[in-house]
């Protein structure tokens, strides 16, 4: 039918796993923004949620690393992490194999994408779902962009993937929501975890809200690494959503650095 919602959110494992170590006021503001995102998705009438993730070696490894992948299953287990460490119990999230297949076939017309009949969610999807579909009552279609194992997916191909997803979402009769998950500047899982480049984040989100294709694709990985850490490579998921929004303007609903969560925690959406 149409894409009815497009947004982005953070997925840092600390958001659920180290919740008690953050400033309660800032943390609760983030949680409230997540809840509003859930309400907005529900209000859109979405019948399925595509999550564009930057997974962290939960399913894909350097023996056969796809630039893009989409799940093709009726159920997805998660999280792969220790449940107590992540603060999220083991779950089985619903998928929709038939819808996935129709999405994948359409995406394949313009983007080379791998499909996966098995997919285990890590925190990159589990944390967003913890807030966005806490009852696991909406079918999930996981998608992934290689943001972790170089050679990484080029930014302009991430944009093209977003365009392909938009065409696919508009081609199926169901109402589709799409959410990209990732960090902006951060140095996750390194001794520098907690370092955040707020100025860089603000500049990136300004480009994102303007949905400025040229400005978003002007980054290069070495500069991103220097200014925004290896976690900055995950901007691919945000850029993908920009393309899916097809020029719509964006709004940042929440963006605050939370060092114990290792990132500027962000909730933003496009006005489709």
């Amino acid at each position, binding site marked *: 039918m149409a894409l009815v919602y497009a947004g982005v959110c953070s997925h840092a*494992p*600390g958001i659920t*796993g*180290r919740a008690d170590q953050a400033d309660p006021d800032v943390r609760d503001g983030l949680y409230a923004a997540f809840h509003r995102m859930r309400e907005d998705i529900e209000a859109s009438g979405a019948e399925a949620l595509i999550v564009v993730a930057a997974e*962290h*070696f*939960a*399913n894909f*490894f*350097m*023996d056969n690393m796809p630039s893009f992948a989409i799940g093709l299953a009726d159920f997805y287990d998660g999280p*792969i*992490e*220790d449940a107590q*460490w*992540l603060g999220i119990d083991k779950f089985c999230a619903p998928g929709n194999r038939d819808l996935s297949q129709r999405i994948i076939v359409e995406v394949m017309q313009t983007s080379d994408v791998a499909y996966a009949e098995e997919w*285990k969610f*890590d925190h990159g999807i589990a944390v967003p779902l913890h807030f966005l579909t806490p009852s696991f009552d909406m079918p999930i279609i996981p998608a992934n962009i290689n943001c*972790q*194992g*170089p050679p990484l997916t080029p930014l302009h191909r991430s944009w093209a993937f977003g365009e392909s997803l938009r065409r696919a979402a508009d081609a199926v009769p169901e109402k589709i929501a799409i959410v990209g998950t990732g960090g902006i500047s951060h140095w*996750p*899982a*390194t*001794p*520098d*975890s907690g*370092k955040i*480049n707020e100025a860089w984040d603000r500049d990136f989100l300004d480009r994102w809200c303007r949905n400025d294709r040229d400005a978003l694709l002007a980054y290069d*990985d*070495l500069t991103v*690494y*220097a*200014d925004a850490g*290896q976690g900055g490579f995950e901007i691919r998921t945000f850029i993908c959503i920009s393309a899916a929004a097809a020029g719509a303007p964006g709004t940042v609903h929440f963006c605050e650095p939370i060092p114990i969560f290792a990132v500027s925690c962000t909730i933003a959406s496009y006005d489709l």
Partner: protein
Amino acid sequence: MSLYYVQKFLYQLNRDEALQEQYDADRRGVLTGYELTDEEVEALVAPDIGLLFHLGVNGQILMHFAALHQIEWTDYLQRMGDGIAKHGPVREGVYAMTGYEGVGEA
């Protein structure tokens, strides 16, 4: 050294509960079949988080491994920093490729 196989073992361990049980029962035994140096085997058996980070294991893979061992977050970060202090800059992998030395500077 064989960073690829160190990471491949950890990738498989992190997502496979059956392999985790085997690792718990016989840490050294589950490593047969992977092309690893003695240094790498000892780091995986110990586990030596600092040495693994120095060897170049991606922090996203190492983080899940540390969680498996119930290593608390700040302790995990400290162990990586101690590994760099003891062994020197990251030898290989994404951090070495991009000049990362784990010294807390942009």
